[in-house]
């Protein structure tokens, strides 16, 4: 019961302190909220760009064509040599018939049977059987292409990394930019929380001195300030989390309405998948920052 009474007392004192220094507390909450909002926003963007990049990677592969007259055993041997290399996610043999069927579907559409009738007994892609290769990491593509091109029996290697490299580049720029902005905001938030706690400590100097002399423990003297920091962090995280819920929902609906009918490339991570992560990140950042900053600030100011 004693522990609970002490905790409850410290909690109430923390709340009182926020009320007493309401302007400083509001400034701290606003800064933490702005910091976490931008963090959540950039987090969502980075996660979505990564998601889109990943999706794109699964659709972009390497196609390996063989020299004419190569036997099935030789083609199989080439396949085995490629499989030996690390980083291969999938290697699939596409026969000439499958290549022609795929071509018909892609280019002739619903009328494929009629339009392809002229080639009934003559597969124009007879020499286009190939290996379709998908890599675990698209950044390994260039090295893999060079390796395959060096193999005997390989006529041509097709690949395209324009989209993926653009995505990766964009992802990198967004990550660096968001990292820099967030670092500045975190520094400002740390300064403001620390300042709020320092003001609260100065305001309660007399009370803390009395507490010390009548036998209050370090925990009891410091806890209200830490509670204050944690509440500032928690409220500061709650606001952007709520804002992100509505903004993300709107953005996802907008993308579906305006872009998904043309291409699935811009498909966003569903809200119910990304939101728990946003909540976890925001709360950890807000509460963690509030706790750590107030803990270390009060340690500095209150030599008990």
């Amino acid at each position, binding site marked *: 019961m*004693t*522990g609970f*009474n002490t905790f409850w007392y410290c909690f109430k004192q923390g709340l009182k302190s926020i009320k007493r220094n309401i302007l400083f507390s509001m400034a701290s909450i606003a800064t933490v909220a702005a910091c976490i909002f931008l963090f959540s926003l950039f987090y969502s963007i980075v996660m979505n760009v990564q998601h889109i990049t990943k999706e794109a990677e699964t659709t972009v592969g390497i196609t390996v064509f063989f020299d004419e007259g190569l036997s099935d055993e030789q083609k199989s041997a080439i396949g085995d040599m490629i499989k030996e290399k690390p980083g291969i996610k999938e290697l699939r043999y596409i026969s000439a018939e499958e290549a022609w069927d795929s071509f018909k579907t892609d280019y002739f559409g619903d009328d494929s049977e009629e339009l392809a009738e002229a080639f009934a007994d003559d597969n124009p892609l007879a020499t286009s059987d190939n290996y379709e290769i998908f890599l675990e990491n698209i950044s390994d593509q260039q090295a893999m292409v060079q390796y395959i091109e060096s193999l005997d029996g390989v006529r041509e290697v097709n690949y395209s990394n324009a989209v993926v490299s653009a995505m990766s580049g964009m992802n990198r720029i967004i990550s660096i930019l968001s990292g820099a902005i967030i670092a500045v905001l975190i520094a400002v938030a740390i300064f403001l929380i620390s300042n709020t706690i320092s003001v609260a400590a100065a305001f309660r100097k007399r009370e803390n001195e*009395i507490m010390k*002399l*009548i*036998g*209050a423990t370090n925990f009891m003297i410091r806890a209200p300030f830490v509670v204050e920091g944690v509440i500032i962090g928690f409220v500061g995280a709650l606001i952007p989390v709520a804002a992100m819920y509505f903004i993300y929902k709107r953005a996802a609906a907008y993308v579906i309405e305006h872009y998904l009918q043309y291409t699935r490339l811009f498909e966003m991570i569903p809200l119910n998948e990304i939101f728990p992560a946003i909540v976890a990140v925001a709360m950890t950042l807000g509460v963690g920052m509030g706790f750590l900053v107030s803990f270390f600030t009060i340690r500095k100011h209150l030599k008990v």
Partner: protein
Amino acid sequence: MIELKNVCKTYETGNKAIRNINLNIRDGEFVFIVGKSGSGKSTLFKLLTRELKATSGEIIVNGCDLNKIKRRNIPKYRRTLGVVFQDFRLLYDRNVFENVAFAQRVIGASGSEIKRNVPEMLKLTGLGAKYKSYPNHLSGGEQQRVAIARALINHPQVLLADEPTGNLDSYNTHEIMRLLETVNSMGTTVIVITHSKEMVSEMKKRVITMDKGLIVSDEYPEKKPVSVMPVMGNSRSRGKSRRRPENTDDRI
């Protein structure tokens, strides 16, 4: 039991505030420590509350060796003390009840314990009717009573009072001293630090006089006082006392 053996305190500035003091105070005693400004009284007070650590020597209070006590155990030790100051050190944004309850909250007392104990203590200190008042609306004497109530609420073994009547008129001084005597009669050791030797001579209690960091006299009353009178004028010669040499252990 409070025991000081060869205690010295030298500040970082080189000022020797306490010079090789030896002192014994038994449980339940009422002791005045008097001396001029700079005599070392306040340093002694701070050594006893463990705000300061002695440079050398041994201070044992309620069984705790204050030079060896671990930092984390200091709050526990301080809970065996009650402290009262000249400037009251009350919380002016809280009423009388809250000021006294504050000391109970520090030790983690429950709401029901606080509701039971605080009115009892306010009654003892004569503040029963003023529990809702704020310190600014009380007289100096009443504020000091609040401070004493706060010091006593956790039933300390020792009450340390640093110039408790320094800001009070003679009537309130008399009232506060009578209250401290009541507290002492209930078994609490009371140590009052003051610079007013005139006031203490009326009380017929043990008087330790300090000067330049030394105990220059340790006087015991010949008999218990019949009544406590307000201090009026120069009463230095009124109380008969027998002087004992400094640092003698034969009484303990």
